[in-house]
């Protein structure tokens, strides 16, 4: 949970950059306007979360998923976001997959090295491999709980 109220604000520098990029060059955005947009963005997150959560509850799920967020956007009448969101998610997923493969390869290489040093048997290696994979899956699933 948030310890300080500022924790619920989004970083001003990033918000300012996004605003700048959205507007024509040279538009002057007042400090007050920037702060207001930043607050609006926080409220948007809460609103979207609560909408998405309703969809999850209806489906008797405890974990919010991508479909819930997309459904929330529709309910909030931000259909215009749907296409860019789907496209971004696609890119994101590809990136995740690529990264996973790389780290898996790295880990296997490490294991091999370790095995050479300790002269472990082949059976051990396979067993360990499976165990580590399972552990990885668990940590990924549990990630959202980490912060509390």
């Amino acid at each position, binding site marked *: *949970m*948030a310890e300080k109220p500022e924790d*619920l604000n*989004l*970083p001003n520098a*990033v*918000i300012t950059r*996004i*605003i700048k*990029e*959205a*507007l*024509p060059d*040279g*538009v*002057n*955005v*007042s400090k007050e*306007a920037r702060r*207001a*947009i930043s*607050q*609006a*963005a*926080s*409220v948007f*997150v*809460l609103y*979207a*979360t*609560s909408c*998405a*959560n309703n969809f999850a*509850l209806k489906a008797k799920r*405890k*974990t*919010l*998923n*991508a479909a*819930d*967020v*997309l459904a929330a*956007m529709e309910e909030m*009448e*931000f259909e*215009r*976001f749907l296409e860019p*969101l789907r496209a971004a*998610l696609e*890119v*994101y*997923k590809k*990136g*995740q997959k690529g990264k996973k493969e790389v780290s898996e390869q790295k880990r296997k290489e490490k294991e091999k090295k370790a095995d050479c040093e300790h002269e472990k048997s082949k059976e051990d290696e396979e067993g360990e491999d499976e165990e580590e994979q399972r552990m990885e899956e668990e940590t*990924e699933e549990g*990630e*959202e709980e*980490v*912060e*509390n």
Partner: protein
Amino acid sequence: MSQNRPEKDDPALDAKKTISLPISRVRLIMKSSPDVSSINQDALFLTTKATELFVQHLARSSFNNGCGKESNSLSYSDLAKTAEETETFHFLTDILPKKILARDYLKSLEQMQEEDADL
């Protein structure tokens, strides 16, 4: 304390090209909602991305409907106007109230008191 740490080496870095807001902060805001128990990575990513689209959309709409087009500026009153006039931004009226002058407020206060006195 170390709340930003766990992400440092995973999704945040991957997503760098597609999103610029910090996922960890968005998660914190989402988690501040009491009825949310857990959020999967994709939902978190989508909400972060949606927030960016929202900021762009709000800034653009307010600038286009606002009165700062000639002077090339975006002010608070343009935002308040958008929140009031655009259906999809209605949920912002509470945090983007229209500003009124103190003397107008005092006037309406006086009026209300007079009405009360009349009763």
